[in-house]
């Protein structure tokens, strides 16, 4: 860990990535980042878009380490958001050790986390939004990209009710979704029917009659500009998540349908067309290159945070991160159906700098009140950094795999490559809240089964293709399934069936035998009939026996060819 003094010495004053005010690094060197430095923005044009996405029910400030490995394939190779660590800092001219570096990269994460504190907190987000609205009362649209109602202990206990209550207080103008659907069709319908704003899903259709199941588009007028917001829910919800929970809804990318909605919106007088998307960044990049007439895509799902918009043709792609770390503000000058120019700021929500909004803070306390003793109960402690993001493994998942191998008595453990779940710093206590932040969901069953070596290979190949298919339309946006007790080599640029090799059973170093049956445990099965205890119970049981967690470096996955 570097000291604050050393840290300040490496802070160099390069360009201000986050906007027009003084570089945060300079201010950090003077030890005086203020709320105004984070929110400062010279209002521009006639429309302001505020974008939030993938909050994953994080009401309180969190640590969140961005990935150090996030490979791009095909046309996305080496392009944002597939640039990480020091390469990312160099690409965006961000000073190492700066607040921007802490917020956007994995570099020196632990040291910088101790320096700059937690990020996010829905009460701080409320302050940011209040500020924007006060500055732009008649010009602002707030759009929520979804993955809002899932990801915490309280969201699980209240079936998303806590987030609905909070978001209603934040007053978004529209939202779309993904994990929302894992609450089941009945609960989603119940909530959506009562929402004071529109839940959009232009790509969701009734399975039987192929009729739209949700509002596809919503028209607004802000600053005298007619705005169409088209909603695109996560296209692969019934594939990546349990289809049995939403049996009557079909999703998909449905590029033709989006094109149809864009031209219908234009015909209805829309001067600005926004796609509020949960496609994932690479899918949106391809879509923007093929469907004309979209001015702005507000990207979500893949949890990328980009400090500047990425332009594809005339379309601006905005990536606003996850877990409440950022709020995007995009000011647009729209005239005669064209965006003439724009200003953008990815506002980092430094929780120690931005004052909580008192009203929303009180609402958070009210919501969490009944669960306070559950949330704060200490169930372990970690001596090493626990995080999830990364293409091949995360230390939280290493802990989960260790727990499943022991508690479920299996040779091999599989843990899904989710991208949500905050981090824990070395020395922190593991509370029940922290545990649930990594696994709170509606199909948590930790199953135990047998799989042949051949089938295990097929599983790895299948998931790898969902991540590394060179055509983004075939990608599902998660990371590689995490493995415990199993090692393998992966060549991401090979085709399906050829990426995975050298599968090894770690307990004895033997090569995986295609015809032998292995005892396998895992969680988050999309099957309706999975049997076993919920994953949090398994991890709690494990922590009772091993209360001090230390995750050693994991070399079980070897990456070649990139």
């Amino acid at each position, binding site marked *: 860990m570097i000291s604050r003094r050393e840290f300040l010495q490496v802070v160099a004053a390069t360009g201000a990535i986050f906007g027009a005010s003084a570089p945060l690094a300079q201010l950090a060197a003077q030890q005086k980042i203020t709320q105004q430095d984070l929110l400062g923005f010279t209002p521009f044009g006639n429309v302001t878009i505020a974008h939030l996405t993938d909050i994953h029910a994080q009401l309180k400030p969190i640590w969140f380490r961005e990935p150090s490995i996030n490979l791009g394939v095909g046309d996305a190779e080496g392009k944002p958001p597939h640039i990480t660590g020091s390469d990312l800092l160099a690409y965006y001219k961000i000073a190492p050790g700066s607040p921007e570096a802490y917020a956007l990269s994995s570099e020196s994460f632990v040291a910088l986390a101790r320096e700059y504190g937690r990020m996010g907190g829905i009460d701080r987000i409320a302050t940011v939004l209040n500020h924007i609205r006060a500055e732009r009362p008649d010009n602002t649209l707030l759009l929520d990209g979804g993955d809002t109602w899932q990801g915490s202990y309280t969201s699980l206990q209240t079936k998303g009710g806590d987030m609905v209550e909070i978001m209603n207080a934040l007053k978004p103008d529209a939202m779309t979704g993904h994990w929302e659907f894992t609450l089941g069709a009945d609960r989603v319908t119940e909530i959506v029917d009562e929402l004071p704003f529109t839940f959009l899903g232009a790509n969701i259709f009734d399975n039987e009659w192929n009729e739209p199941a949700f509002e596809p588009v919503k028209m607004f007028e802000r600053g005298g500009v007619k705005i169409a917001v088209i909603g695109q829910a*996560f296209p692969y919800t019934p594939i*990546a998540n349990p289809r049995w929970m939403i049996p009557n809804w*079909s999703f998909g*990318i449905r590029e033709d349908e989006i094109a149809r909605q864009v031209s219908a919106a234009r015909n209805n007088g829309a001067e600005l067309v926004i796609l509020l998307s949960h496609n994932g960044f690479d899918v949106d990049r391809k879509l923007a290159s093929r469907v004309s007439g979209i001015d702005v895509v507000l990207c979500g799902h893949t949890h990328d945070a980009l400090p500047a918009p990425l332009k594809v043709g005339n379309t601006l792609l905005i990536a606003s991160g996850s877990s409440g770390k950022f709020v995007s503000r995009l000011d647009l000058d729209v005239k005669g159906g064209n965006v003439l120019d724009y200003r953008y700021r990815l506002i980092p929500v430094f929780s120690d700098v931005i004052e909580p909004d008192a009203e929303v803070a009180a609402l958070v306390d009210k919501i969490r009140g009944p669960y306070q003793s559950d949330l704060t109960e200490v169930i372990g402690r970690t001596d090493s950094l626990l995080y999830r993001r990364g293409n091949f493994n995360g230390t939280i998942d290493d802990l989960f795999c260790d727990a499943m191998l022991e508690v479920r008595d299996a040779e091999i453990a599989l843990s899904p490559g989710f991208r949500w779940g905050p981090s824990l710093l070395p020395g922190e206590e593991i509370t029940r809240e922290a545990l649930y932040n990594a696994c709170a969901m509606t199909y948590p069953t930790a199953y135990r089964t047998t799989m042949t070596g051949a089938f295990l290979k*097929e599983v790895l190949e299948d998931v790898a*293709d*969902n991540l590394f298919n060179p055509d983004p339309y075939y990608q*599902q946006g998660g990371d590689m399934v995490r493995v415990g007790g199993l090692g393998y080599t992966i060549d991401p640029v090979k085709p399906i069936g050829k990426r995975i090799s050298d599968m090894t059973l770690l307990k004895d170093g033997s090569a995986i035998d295609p015809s032998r049956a292995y005892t396998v445990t*895992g969680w988050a099965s999309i*099957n309706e009939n999975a049997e076993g205890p919920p994953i949090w119970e398994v991890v709690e049981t494990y922590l009772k026996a091993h209360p001090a967690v230390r995750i050693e470096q994991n070399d079980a996955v070897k990456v070649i060819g990139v």
Partner: protein
Amino acid sequence: MKEVTRRETLALGAAAGAAAMFAPYVAWAAVEEANALIAKFTGGKAATDGKITLQMPEIAENGSTVPLSVSVDSPMTKDNYVKRVIIVADGNPRPEVATFNFTPRSGVAEASTRMRLAKTQNIVAVAEMSDGSFHMTKRQVKVTIGGCGG
């Protein structure tokens, strides 16, 4: 016995003994068999790309019932219309999926149906026009285990 789709078969965390139990030993149609069907349809003539559009999901949500829509750009007049469209799946045990017949009185050359997909494969649609020419298009539809998106 209830038919088990590939997705159910492969779904991560399938019930005990999953893999060995299921894997259905069907002799998959070779791509050659699909090509032979197309050659028979065209009488050996070359089919050109364009004019025909096949709408299918990139990844099947449910391999046992995958929606499919085909349309051909044609004025559908007495002198210029689409006669037939064949749909072929090059990875199914029986590659012939459907043949749609049209006349000028059809008005438009469009049809929709649902099909079963045994595994990831290409779906080929070929249209025979009234002037004796052929147009084709191809689309890959993936059948995946799913369950890890995130």
